[in-house]
């Protein structure tokens, strides 16, 4: 044990990069990344549910605009979407006089808007696929019980669609975590932003970026295991009975 502590002490003494201050930068970056990803995922999820219902509608004037929205947002790079919102928000007439302006002037909110719209588009398509895959028998059973369309959606289709969408949605969450790295491009000090700052300050690319890569890897695994656990719980009824 003594050997280990001396070894660790020597290791820390020989390194100028991982000081309390730089660890503090990484911590602030982790907080920003988490806030950004969590908020955009939650808002995106709330938006995606009605959009997915509309996207599965038979009325084309409802489903077509939603299709165009998801096609555009899934077909173009998130970086472009971020630039359009970050540089373009100034051009909405009168926005500088509203109470929103102090918020929108900072990079955080344009990034949040871009990420939210992006994840909402992907999530809409994931949910639409899950809604479409509802077994016919379930719908027929709901009809036979005399359920209205909205009751059937609420009690039958959505609960089973959410479960089917879970694995794909887990991938989307990981995708969003990784995509959030581009927030550093618009001057935001997220995890990647902190790594870039420390790289520039100490000219130490390996330390700066390998450390942040390890943090992302841990976060990815945490999300992965969380969704596995959730799937196990929520899809327990689909497991073969022993």
């Amino acid at each position: 044990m003594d050997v280990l502590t001396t070894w660790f002490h020597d290791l820390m003494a020989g390194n100028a990069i991982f000081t309390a201050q730089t660890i503090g930068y990484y911590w602030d970056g982790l907080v920003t990344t988490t806030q950004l990803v969590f908020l955009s995922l939650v808002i995106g999820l709330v938006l995606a549910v009605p959009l997915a219902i509309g996207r599965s509608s038979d009325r084309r004037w409802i489903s077509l605009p939603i299709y165009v929205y998801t096609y555009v947002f899934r077909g173009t790079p998130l970086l472009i979407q971020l630039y359009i919102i970050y540089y373009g928000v100034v051009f909405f007439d009168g926005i500088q006089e509203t109470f929103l302006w102090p918020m929108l002037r900072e990079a955080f909110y344009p990034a949040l808007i871009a990420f939210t719209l992006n994840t909402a588009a992907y999530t809409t398509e994931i949910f639409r696929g899950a809604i479409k895959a509802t077994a016919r028998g379930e719908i027929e059973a709901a009809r036979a019980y005399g359920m209205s369309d909205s009751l059937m959606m609420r009690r039958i289709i959505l609960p089973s669609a959410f479960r089917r969408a879970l694995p794909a949605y887990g991938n989307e969450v990981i995708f969003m975590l990784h995509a959030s790295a581009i927030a550093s491009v618009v001057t935001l000090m997220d995890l990647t932003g902190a790594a870039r700052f420390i790289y520039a300050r100490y000219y130490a690319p390996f330390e700066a970026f390998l450390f942040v890569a390890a943090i992302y890897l841990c976060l990815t695994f945490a999300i992965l295991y969380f969704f596995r656990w959730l799937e196990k719980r929520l899809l327990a009824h689909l497991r073969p009975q022993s």
Partner: protein
Amino acid sequence: MLDLHGYGPRLLEGAGVTLQLAVLSLALAILLGLATASARMSRGWLLQRLATLYTTVIRGVPDLVLMMLLFFGGQMALNVITDALYDRFGVDWYVNLNAFAAGVITIGFIFGAYMGETFRGAFMAVDAGQIEAGKAYGMSPWLVFRRIRFPQMMRHALPGISNNWMVLLKTTALVSVIGLSDMVRVAAEASRATHEPFTFLLPVAAAYLLIASVSEWLFAWLQKRYNIGFGGH
């Protein structure tokens, strides 16, 4: 109209960079993917572990972080090597890792991991009887690969390759961050200079949609070709 305050030609050049970058990275990714899939299915314990480590780590870290690590760190590592060569052997050899090469290597390296998973699934979907039949005809392993495993594997792999390509195409936008003048970087520069972001960013977004639509159509055609003899789908 295409002049765009004089940025039109540079934007077109940028679009060319984006396309070249995407196609070259795809080629590298396919090669790496085939190698990874073969390694994961091989009997060698070390090869299997290495391939698994590669696919797991790459898919767990953001593209942008990997790109910066390779671009900034790669140059440093190269400098260390060339300096050592100079000190020890007097070889005056300097390699400058340019942004384009770094972009192709990083994107190819990242998507090689995804392709590896796609190809592994596709190789396993090829009927073992087909391979046995090839061996029974006295074909060498390479001939079995070329004539039997590869063409039949592609049928299963194409939807996955198509998916990976669409994601790869969008990932190329990230090279603008490490200083490569692809169409995103030109558009961002022009937006800042002229204060007209929509004039430049919207056409670039449309260009991405166009490339995506054309490649979707191409993949549908390829899919049809590789499915000949399998009745429709």
